[in-house]
């Protein structure tokens, strides 16, 4: 501990230990902690302060207390955005999980062509979401209408009506992310020893029993981690609805709504109140998930 004072200095070259290990640990951690505290934690408090003031456009009019929150919570637009965000999250995450699990199970069983599949499965992941959005926007559009052409439909307006607009956005997200979920689950599948399946087969277990009593329980940690990150990611959806529908036809997500009050109709007070509410919603869901995962999720990084 006596070496703490030299922690800020560069360690001297040579055999002599100039820093205690724990001082070095703090020194190594400090830049990362500083950046995350200044850019992620501090703005949250700043947003709470901003949200307590009333603005007319960008002009501050005075202290308003919880006025912005009452306005946000009593507007149907906020609740529509909450609804759209939840519909998107539940439908996209469940579809991605089922399709991703299917892909992972197929990829585990196949040997020839596994390399090329594993490589191409990364392709939708690596593509900017904006590009995926433009791609599916044109696919679903009436002109040129590739989706309609492939399905034999005549000028069906996917993006121009409530319900189907959300369906198209969910479809684009599932296309982009199901392969990624497959990749995570495949990594989980590969940690299950083959001997377990062998002995289960010897004991007469059916394919379904092997899946349900061996694969699923042992895959549970990988499933929960994949679901956690997919859910949190889906709750902050922005790119796809912004590019594909601009938020029309009941597809305005919370992120789009917040961004509106920064860019289109600037109002730092109301915008900050909305962003704080969004933060609280995502936080609650994140905490529920992490509690379900248990402490081992955080701890497994530590115990090597």
């Amino acid at each position, binding site marked *: 501990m006596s070496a703490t004072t030299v922690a800020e200095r560069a*360690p001297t070259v040579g*055999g002599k230990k100039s*820093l205690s290990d724990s001082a070095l*640990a*703090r020194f*190594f*951690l400090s*830049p990362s902690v500083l*950046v*995350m505290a200044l*850019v*992620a934690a501090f*703005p949250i408090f700043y*947003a709470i302060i901003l949200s307590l003031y009333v603005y007319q456009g960008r002009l501050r009019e005075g202290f308003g207390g919880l006025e912005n929150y009452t306005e946000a919570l009593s507007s149907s637009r906020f609740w529509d955005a909450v609804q759209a965000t939840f519909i998107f999250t539940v439908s996209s995450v469940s579809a991605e999980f089922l399709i991703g699990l299917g892909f992972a199970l*197929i990829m585990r*069983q*196949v040997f020839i062509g596994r390399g090329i*599949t594993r*490589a*191409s499965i990364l*392709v*939708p992941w*690596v593509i*900017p979401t904006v*590009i995926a*959005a*433009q791609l599916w926007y*044109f*696919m679903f559009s009436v*002109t*040129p*209408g*590739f989706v309609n*052409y492939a399905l034999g439909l005549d000028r069906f307006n996917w993006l121009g009506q409530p319900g189907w607009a959300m369906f198209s956005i969910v479809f684009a997200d599932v296309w982009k992310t199901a*392969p*990624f979920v497959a990749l995570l689950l495949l*990594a989980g599948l590969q940690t299950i020893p*083959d001997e377990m399946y062998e002995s289960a*087969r010897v004991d007469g277990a059916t394919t379904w029993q*092997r899946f349900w009593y061996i694969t699923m329980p042992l895959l549970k940690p990988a499933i929960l*981690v994949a679901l956690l*990150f997919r859910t*949190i990611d889906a*709750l*902050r959806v922005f790119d796809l609805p*912004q590019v594909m529908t601009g938020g029309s036809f009941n597809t305005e997500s*919370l992120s789009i709504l917040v*961004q509106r009050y920064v860019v289109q109709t600037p109002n*730092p007070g109301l*915008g*900050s109140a*909305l*962003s*704080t509410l969004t*933060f609280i919603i*995502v936080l609650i869901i*994140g905490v529920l998930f992490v509690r379900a995962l248990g402490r081992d999720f955080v701890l497994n*990084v*530590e115990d*090597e």
Partner: protein
Amino acid sequence: MATNDGVVVQTSPLRKVGRYALLAFILLWCLFPFMWLIDTSLKLGDAALNSPSLSQGPFGLDNYRSVFDQGFGYNLRNSAIVAGTTTIVCITIGSLAAYALARLPLKGKVLILSAILAVALFPSVALVPPLYELWLNLGLLNTYPGLYIPYTAFTLPLTIFILTTFYASIPKDLEEQARVDGATAFQAFYKIVLPLAAPGVFAAAIIVFVYAWNEFLLSSTFAPRDLAAQTVPVAIAAFTGSVEFQRPIGTVTAACVIVTIPMIIGTLILQRRITAGLTAGAVKG
């Protein structure tokens, strides 16, 4: 009925065919939309809008020329600078933090890891109004730092998780031997652990780069129009015609192809490292 759960057991030919058909479906799922994208970007004039047929011409490279006429070269430059800076800063400070968490004695490790996890779960939209106000006052709107500073904060948790896993998998003996021989903890990290962790560092770097390259919410808010800082995703979203229904399909698809092809080639080459990184952190980039 024998199934093949990873061990070579005789399989009925019908099942085998079925499996490869499913594999082909996965390949088609992942790759077909790009074939369509390339095909559409090569169609000239109104051909792309008029017919959904893949073979309906005329074809040519005009769309690619018009993309660069609209200043797309600047967007590529901006994205490269922003994503490159994010990657370098994030990996430099993140690798130090991960080493401290994986190897050095530290009080409250669980607390620190929980805090890092909290930042990983953070909805970036919560930062949009307050950071916009801050950047407005600091003059950081439409600048590179206005983008790479928040990107670094958001990619740090992922980087630290990935690198902590990689460091933890390196045998301790080598390091301990070096310490016995008189090396400091810093020297042990710098000369022994870091070179051995290079594959992990590289994997993390790719994932951070992809995140920064693809980010859209913050970039479209903090640098929406100015070509001095507008990044590729913002430019691609902004290629809109006068009416919403007249999005210039040729230019948009050509711009998408220009961005996508190098990324796909890079992904195919670096596939193993990316997979290792993604599954180590088990987090989306």
